[in-house]
């Protein structure tokens, strides 16, 4: 289960994720991002309530990062330790901005 809440304010968007970002839920996030990403320059992911991420979730983040690098910025906030561990192992902690 993944809950996606988005707050869009002009060119700034915050996406709050709750639950699990895995093979079954990653397409849901991908579609959601596609629907508004072209019109924003700052993208923030709030991961405070994200419990789990697998490589399918990482792929969506990498695609978003590539896209946002060209037209603005992207960062992740409130990342839990267990999720952060996955970023460390995969080298994602170096390519994503995590605060």
């Amino acid at each position, binding site marked *: 289960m993944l809950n996606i809440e988005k707050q869009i304010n002009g060119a700034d968007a915050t996406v709050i994720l709750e639950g699990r970002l895995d093979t079954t839920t990653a397409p849901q996030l991908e579609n959601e991002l596609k629907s508004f990403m072209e019109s924003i320059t700052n993208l923030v992911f709030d991961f405070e309530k994200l419990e789990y991420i*697998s490589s399918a979730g990482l*792929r969506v983040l990498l695609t978003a990062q590539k896209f946002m690098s060209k037209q603005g910025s992207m960062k992740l906030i409130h990342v839990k330790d267990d999720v952060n*561990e996955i970023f460390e192992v995969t080298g994602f902690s170096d390519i994503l901005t995590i605060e």
Partner: protein
Amino acid sequence: MSRKNIKILAVLDNLSKVLESVDAQLDAADCPLKTKMQVDVAVEELFVNIANYAYVPDTGDADILIEIMDSCPIPEDCQEDISDIDRSGNWLRVTLSDSGTPFNPLLKEDPDVTLSAQDRRIGGLGIFMVKKSMDYMYYEFKDGKNNISICKKLS
């Protein structure tokens, strides 16, 4: 110590059922949350591989054997050098089997994790994550089946 076997149709819709079964075993063994997540990520990766590729264009079953053991399960034919591993304590071994196309995921080349976001490729991450987060893993093709095992020290 425990041992549980699940036979399930290898389709993406069954992923959550698979992870629930794995988690139930891990919870019963008082597995730390961090380890549980790493094991889930690994099992997801391997199960999804079977669901997506093993029986294409048909579908077939996956067998998932979850074992909690009181010593390190030393495989007869481990491709990894495990001489440095502390073999004491409780160990988890999860073995996923399918009778689809022979495929050794360990032969896949590791992605370059030092590349920038622009240069990183989307694929190839999954198995790499599994290799990094488990203590060791091994593959064998036996009796017409792919068997891939992941091993993790629990305590």
